[in-house]
């Protein structure tokens, strides 16, 4: 379709008809200077301008990350512990470990539950009342503000165990990951063709065998896409970790022993804490941590995109 001006109908046509003379064919000439044609062009220019303005923040964010974060990014930053107040140097090695551990634990909780739930929604009772209620619950959970996941984990893990800890943060993240996993896994399983399923039933498979041997393997790329999206989102979450995992300037693993039940650092909370400090060193580290976090999130996003494409 050419985007230009569509020929305007000649105004004389209606009058010609009224007199009862032979209908005059509409004029198909382009009238690029007509008012409404000019208006259309102006709006098109406006849309371009708006689209470019909307892209400015992204360019600016990426530019700042590369310039300010890249300046400080160095191997030592990735393996050292966060510096105290006036200290120079330092890094955020423990925060990277903390983020990976908490997101991993969160996935460990949310992925099995999410996939089981999706199996029910897609295979066992897609039209049941329970399925309707569960879908509504999952959609409601998608809209749950992330800080409330933190409040929930605080009330049900931190207050119960009596300490800020990595598992508390993981529970908060899991609450945020579950709905994404459920809804995308259900969609992925729905795309498995009826015929393949029926063939398996015809061979005498039980429903679980069909699910395990046919549906899940076929839908796997789609399910993984959903899991990766959930992981990418969770890795960048800060609010749910603020008062569940808190922060720490020490390693999660000390003397070969993993100590999970203690305050745990994460990249996101480190960025938040350091961004408000009056020390140049900390602010530089916040930018470098942002760069690492964004690269991590984008990497997971790209992997999920690739998985999704292979399916298509």
């Amino acid at each position, binding site marked *: 379709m050419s985007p230009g001006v*569509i020929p305007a*109908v000649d105004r004389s046509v209606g009058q010609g008809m009224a007199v009862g003379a032979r209908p005059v064919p509409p004029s198909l000439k382009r009238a690029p200077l007509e008012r*409404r*044609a000019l208006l*259309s062009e102006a709006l*098109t220019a406006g*849309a*371009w301008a*708006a*689209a470019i*303005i*909307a892209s400015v923040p*992204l360019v*600016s*964010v990426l530019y*700042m*990350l590369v310039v300010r974060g890249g300046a400080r990014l160095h191997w030592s930053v990735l393996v050292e512990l966060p510096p105290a107040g006036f200290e120079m140097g330092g890094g955020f090695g423990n925060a990277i470990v903390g983020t990976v551990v908490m997101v991993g634990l969160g996935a460990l909780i949310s992925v099995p*539950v*999410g996939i*089981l*739930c999706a199996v029910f*929604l897609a*295979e066992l009772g897609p039209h049941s009342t329970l399925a309707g209620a569960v879908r*509504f619950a*999952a959609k*409601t*959970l998608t*809209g749950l*503000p*992330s*800080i*409330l996941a933190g*409040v*929930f984990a605080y*009330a*049900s893990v931190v207050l119960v165990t009596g300490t800020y800890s990595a598992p508390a943060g993981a529970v908060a993240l899991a*609450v945020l990951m*579950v*709905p994404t996993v*459920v809804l995308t896994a259900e969609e992925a399983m729905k795309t498995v063709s009826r015929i393949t399923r029926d063939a398996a039933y015809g061979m*005498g498979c*039980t*429903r*679980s*065998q069909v*699910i395990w041997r046919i549906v899940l393997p076929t839908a796997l790329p789609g399910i993984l896409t959903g899991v990766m999206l959930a992981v990418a989102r969770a*890795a*960048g979450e*800060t*609010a749910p970790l603020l*008062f569940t995992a*808190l922060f720490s300037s020490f390693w999660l693993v000390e003397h070969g022993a993993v100590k999970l039940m203690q305050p745990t650092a994460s990249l996101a909370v480190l*960025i*938040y804490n350091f*961004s408000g400090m009056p020390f140049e060193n900390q*602010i530089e580290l*916040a930018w470098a941590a*942002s760069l690492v*976090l964004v690269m991590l*999130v984008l990497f997971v996003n790209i992997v999920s995109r690739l998985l999704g494409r292979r399916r298509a």
Partner: protein
Amino acid sequence: MSSLEHAGPPGAVASAPSAWDFFADRAFRALATAGAYLILLLLAFILWQIGRKAWPGMRDYGVGFLTSTNWDVGRGHFGILPAIWGTLYSSFLALVIGGFFGVVMAIFLTQDFLPPRLAVVFRTTVELLAAIPSVVYGLWGIFVVVPAIRPGADWLYSHLGRIPFFGSTLSGPGLLPAALVLAIMILPTVAAVSQDALRQVPYRVKEAAYGMGATRWEAILKVMMPTALTGIFGALVLGFGRALGETMALAMLIGNSNQLSLSLFSPANTLAALLALNFPEAGPREVAVLMYAALVLLAITLLVNVAGGAIMAMAGRKAGK
């Protein structure tokens, strides 16, 4: 026939499920059903848990909590009216800005403005905007947005200071930078959902409009938009819901000050930011009050999101007809 009756002799195509297969089938199905119930339970448990912890606060402060403007931990005065106001005001501003750009972006991406390759560039831009963590936007807001808008804000204050919107200086964090960053964060949501709504309008509807001599924008504004209106409205409501619950960018940019003000440049507070900033150091009494605030936030966002979901369902039903 005979090969079907045997349970798996060599060369048979299939064998009947064994007792173990039946057992495994039942067990797995029960497990999956339990998984479904677990999601329901999770939502119920979240509501119950927050409600239960908020109860002491509700009992002590009642409805006055929602209309009081004081937040004084020392004296035990708590009120969240400024935070509610700040939440609604900042989200509304973000919705106006982010909603406008989001809908225009959706039109731009769906109405054949771009050659496919360029469309990929803009589509990726929108998706990347959604992928960047909010804490990174907060950092960017502190070091880029606030310095960038300060000259303009100062000019507006000194020349148009009588208008309540510009009634104070921008001394660093404030409502406008927070709302701007919030707008950027809801733009991808609005754009994605609006795009779906616009794509649901059959292509031949637009072709019919072109055939009648409509210009491109007449076709968009008088045919496509009215047809997709319900879906676009749903997109805006969902975007508003996202803005209400967004925490980090606001906690870093809004200035955490309990005041009721129309000014775009004065510091303010939101419910989510209030929780983020006060929870880590809260004593037991304050925790109860904060839980109450969390319950209010939960109620507001649930209401908006359920409304958005209902509108989307309505749009889907309309498109299905």
